């Protein structure tokens, strides 16, 4: 009962921190998509670049989040943003690159050669082929990458509270410091709910963006 009481008492703060979390994860996902999807498509046309870019994204993924925040601080401090939302969002964008890039790359690469050949042979330009054929066919897998990135970033976003980025992680961090279980549970439950909700939402987006013909193909192949 203590948790509900806590939420009731701090309702507007809870809303604000939730909004901060949404903002942080949402913005990083938008920026991450804007970089990752075009880059993922670009590297499908350049085989040697692909290896390096994906390896790079892999390395970033390997760095523990708290260490990455630590590394960001001195670098971004030179432009006056060592603490707060900026380093958090930069880090989240970097983390989101691996799932987004890799899924985009694999999805486009996996378009059957016969289909690509047919498009080319009928006189589609490279751009038309991409827009009309490759992207629609690759869409479900690309969105699956965004889904992974979003869920992952909600979790990592909670840790960003340590560098003063705000969000629901603040309750967890301060609750631990102040040995205030209601506060910890509020933060933890809300972050988890948020992640589950977003996962469900992205699953729906994935379904909507899967062309009907491909849904049928999958269903009939079973």
């Amino acid at each position, binding site marked *: 009962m203590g948790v509900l009481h806590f939420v009731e008492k701090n309702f507007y703060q809870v809303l604000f921190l939730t909004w901060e979390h949404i903002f942080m994860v949402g913005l990083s996902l938008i920026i991450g998509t804007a970089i990752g999807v075009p880059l993922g498509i670009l590297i499908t046309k350049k085989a040697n670049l692909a290896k390096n870019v994906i390896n790079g994204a892999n390395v970033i993924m390997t760095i523990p989040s708290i260490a990455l925040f630590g590394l960001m601080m001195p670098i971004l401090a030179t432009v006056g943003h060592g603490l707060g939302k900026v380093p958090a969002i930069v880090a989240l964008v970097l983390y989101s690159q691996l799932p987004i890039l890799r899924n985009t790359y694999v999805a486009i690469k996996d378009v*059957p050669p*016969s*289909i690509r*050949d*047919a*498009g*080319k*042979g*009928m*006189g*589609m*330009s490279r751009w*038309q082929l991409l827009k*009309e*054929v490759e992207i*629609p*066919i690759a869409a479900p897998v690309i969105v699956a990458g965004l889904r992974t990135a979003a869920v992952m970033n909600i979790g990592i976003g909670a840790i960003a509270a340590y560098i003063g980025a705000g969000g629901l992680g603040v309750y967890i961090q301060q609750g631990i410091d102040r040995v205030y279980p209601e506060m910890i549970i509020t933060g933890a439950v809300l972050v988890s709910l948020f992640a589950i909700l977003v996962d469900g939402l992205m699953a729906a987006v994935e379904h909507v963006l899967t*062309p*009907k*013909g*491909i849904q*049928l*193909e999958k269903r*009939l*192949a079973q």
Partner: protein
Amino acid sequence: MISYEHVTKIYGEGKSAVTALSDVSLTVERGKIVVLLGPSGCGKTTLLRCTNRLESITRGKILIAGKDIMNMDVIGLRRQIGYVIQNIGLFPHKTIAENIAVVPKLMGWDAERIAKRVDELLTMLRLDPEIFRSRYPAELSGGQQQRVGVARALAADPEILLMDEPFAAIDPINREQIQDEFLKLQEQLKKTIVFVSHDIHEAVKMGDMIALFNQGRLVQYDPPELLLTHPKNKYVADFVGADRALKVLSIILAKDIMDPEPSNIVKGQDSAQDVLKVMEKKGWEYAIVIDQGKPVGYVESQNLKYERGHVIELAESYPVHIFKRTPARDILSYMLMFDLSSLCVVDDNGEFIGTVTYDDIQEKVRQSYTIDAGRD
């Protein structure tokens, strides 16, 4: 018309270079089907893909209607050539109508014209537009998908079709049928077609001309009959097979050998005794009974001897009739099966249009072997 002039294609450079095509020259006449035939890796598909510049050639020239394709805009070139590939390559996310509409849409046709054309093509390929227009490729059988592949290639009414083993992925029964339908269609459309195949049966059936390849070289370029009856060397002879004389039978069609006006015809209402007299006088072994334009059967003199009445009641009916496009191979098979030396050819309404006899077939085969192949 497509002219290949000394076309050479080399992959790679230096020591690792592989010659895919070596000095290939041939001309595809307007409105004809040329089959590029050979085992896998012989260069036939490469030559096809050079035609719409999906591959570039190392040396030589390809001319379409006298114009060098290297001087044409590559996108424009591809849009004016229909392309059908082995794995069909239908776009899974587009409906059948959208798939067929690809090239017209690229060429900027308006929606109404595209819709009309799509329905026209579906009807032409015997797919009901009402049913198939809004379906997706995954819902169609292999044969239906391949028909859509053909419709898509024909969408913008191109002069030229390139077909890369288009029917290879279809089961044998449906393949025969779709080949027949395609040939019927070609009789009206008269497209210039380059058709890749590894199957000698298909090549003989589909081709007006066959170009047989081996290791990137053009070995023989001749009409199917000549390829079968006059193979240029051992490679060709082996490729076309020891039963090549029988294969000749599959290119000879009933319409090539039938006698449209055989003399031994009698009417159904003629009396048995009159017919018998005529038969004895003219020395016929049998007479064909026709009633109201349709063949009823045949009568032999020994069956008429003690009979009165009309021949229509006495005629022995034919177990089977043949059509204009029935190959001699099937006709001969019927003759052996039913122990008959002649059969009637009928049109689609069952009306009598001629006869084919065993002697006609034999004579035609003899002729094809005596064609002077002195062009080497």
